């Protein structure tokens, strides 16, 4: 098991390096001269050349890439923002808590509410409770999340005035973003956990458990839930990716100065260090979450555990 974890962590670092290469290359391909973008078209050629030298963009692609990778992975330095001259790492650190609140609480809501709704629907299969839950879930899977957020702002912030529409001045500001950010994920998770449950409900070993004379409640708790957990965990992983990607758009809607908004402003201003820093951060966040998910799998399922520890123990 330990060896497996080490292997996975090493592999994760490799993936992060690759992701950094991809994002750096994509941002390198963005049309336009960064120096000119910063100083405007009127700037003289000497000033521009000085700026390019300062940013290091006058060097060949490969040199720039390796320089960047060296700083990120060996010195943990994402560099300074081209436009604001602020260290990206510092900025990320300041913005992290806000994104974590939205992402973390969103994730918790996603897992808890989504799974509970899915199980509720599955155990009422074919009845109106099931249909209603699934219709609502379908609507939230389909509607664009930022649009739902706008509608929520109009209703709850503007009309009912229960919460502020944007900003981060009080904790109530976070209520709408957290809920709106998790709605889509909750809906997807509810649908997935419902099908997972349904598959398990029809499994033969459930009939076996009933044939033993086991109480229905215990059958659900001891036999159904653990088996349904596998696909549900996979769903949670997908939901996490959604939360990460969605945070960019969501922070924009609610004017929350988080990492997602930082990245978007970087994209709009072609600020390469900012974009690369944010994306590498997001990739690291997702990878760590995936790793935890895989470990959960191994912990829950003896079949997967056996695969991982097969080097140690021969059957």
């Amino acid at each position, binding site marked *: 098991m330990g060896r497996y974890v080490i292997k996975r962590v090493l592999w994760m670092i490799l*993936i*992060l390096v*690759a*992701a950094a290469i*991809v*994002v750096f290359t*994509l*941002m390198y*391909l*963005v*049309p336009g001269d960064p120096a000119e973008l910063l100083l405007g078209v009127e700037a003289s050629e000497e000033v521009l050349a000085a700026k390019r030298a300062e940013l290091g963009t006058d060097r060949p692609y490969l040199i720039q890439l390796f320089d960047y990778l060296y700083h990120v992975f060996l010195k943990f330095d994402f560099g300074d923002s081209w436009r604001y001259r602020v260290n990206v790492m510092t900025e990320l650190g300041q913005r992290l808590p806000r994104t974590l609140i939205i992402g973390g609480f969103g994730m918790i809501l996603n897992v808890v509410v989504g799974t509970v709704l899915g199980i509720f629907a*599955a155990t009422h299969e074919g009845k109106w409770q099931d249909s209603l839950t699934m219709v609502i879930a*379908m*609507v939230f*899977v*389909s*509607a*664009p*999340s*930022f*649009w739902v957020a*706008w*509608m929520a*702002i*109009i209703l709850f912030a*503007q009309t009912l005035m229960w919460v502020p*529409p944007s900003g981060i001045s009080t904790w109530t500001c976070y209520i709408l973003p957290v809920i709106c950010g998790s709605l889509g994920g909750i809906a997807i998770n509810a*649908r997935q956990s*419902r*099908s997972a449950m*349904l*598959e398990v409900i029809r499994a033969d070993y459930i009939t076996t458990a009933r044939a033993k004379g086991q109480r229905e409640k215990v059958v659900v708790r001891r036999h159904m839930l653990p088996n349904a957990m596998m696909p549900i965990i996979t769903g949670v992983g997908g939901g996490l*990716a*959604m939360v*990460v*990607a*969605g945070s*960019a*758009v969501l922070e*924009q809607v609610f004017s929350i100065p988080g990492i997602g908004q930082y*990245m*978007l402003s970087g*994209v*709009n201003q*072609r600020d390469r260090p900012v*974009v690369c820093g944010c*994306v590498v951060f*997001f*990739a690291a966040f*997702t*990878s760590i979450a995936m790793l935890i998910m895989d470990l959960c799998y191994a912990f829950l399922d003896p079949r997967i555990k056996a695969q991982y520890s097969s080097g140690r123990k021969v059957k």
Partner: protein
Amino acid sequence: MTDVKEKESAKSKRKSSMTAEFARRLVKSWSAKLGLILMLFIILACLIGPYFTGYDLNWQDQSLMRAGPSAQHIFGCDTLGRDMLTRLLYGGRYSLLMGITSAVLGAVVGIAIGLIAGYFGGFTETIIMRFMDVWSSLPGMLLCILVSAAMGNGFFPTVLALTIGSIPGGARMTRGQVLSERSREYIEAAESINCSKLSIMFKHLLPNVIQPSIVITTMSVGSTINMAASLSYIGLGIQPPAPEWGALLADGKNYVTTNPHLIAVPGIAIALTVLAINLLGDGLRDALDPKLRG
């Protein structure tokens, strides 16, 4: 002789009854029916609707800037005083075309990659799947944002961005399917009579692994339309004055609080379309594989 004939007729009977069974289940599923009807309605409306609204795409009346719904303009007018309904219907063509193109392109490439990885196995598989790992370590939306930023705005760059974002999912799923099918006896049988690798992959494996891909592709048309809208909203992808639905939203985003119809209308259009596609996808899944119902 008669035995052979009987067998043949039984075989064709079974095949046709499988198709019939599929059609029967599809028609029986209310979600498929509803999705199909909605979808046909939306496509028809976008194709021929613009000619019946009474306004041209660029017809403009500055006195009607951001005007709310009225008898002349049932969905109101946009920020420049153009008829919202007309723009919405024209825009649907962009959104649908973009969603379908990207999802199908992504699926085709993804399936091909998954087939190759799953069938060849070994080193080829390792390389391809490791590559996919990197590819999908960035959530699809982030990748779209980056590619969009690098390629610039407009229809084709956006289609490219959306396609790239949707490839790894299809590849992973196809590979999983291929892995479980590869060990089946009909593949061994095909190999034993010296079928070429290409013919095994496309004639024998593909039909057996494609069903879940069809469902996923249908669903991803919907999520692609959603993603395109998000891209437009954050200033990438397709931008105003193009009437694409996301661009309509982006156009109205500064008036969310004052003129909600500017975003309510295109938003509802997107939600309804994606809903129709998802319903259809659900129905397809039920009809293809009753086991997977849910």
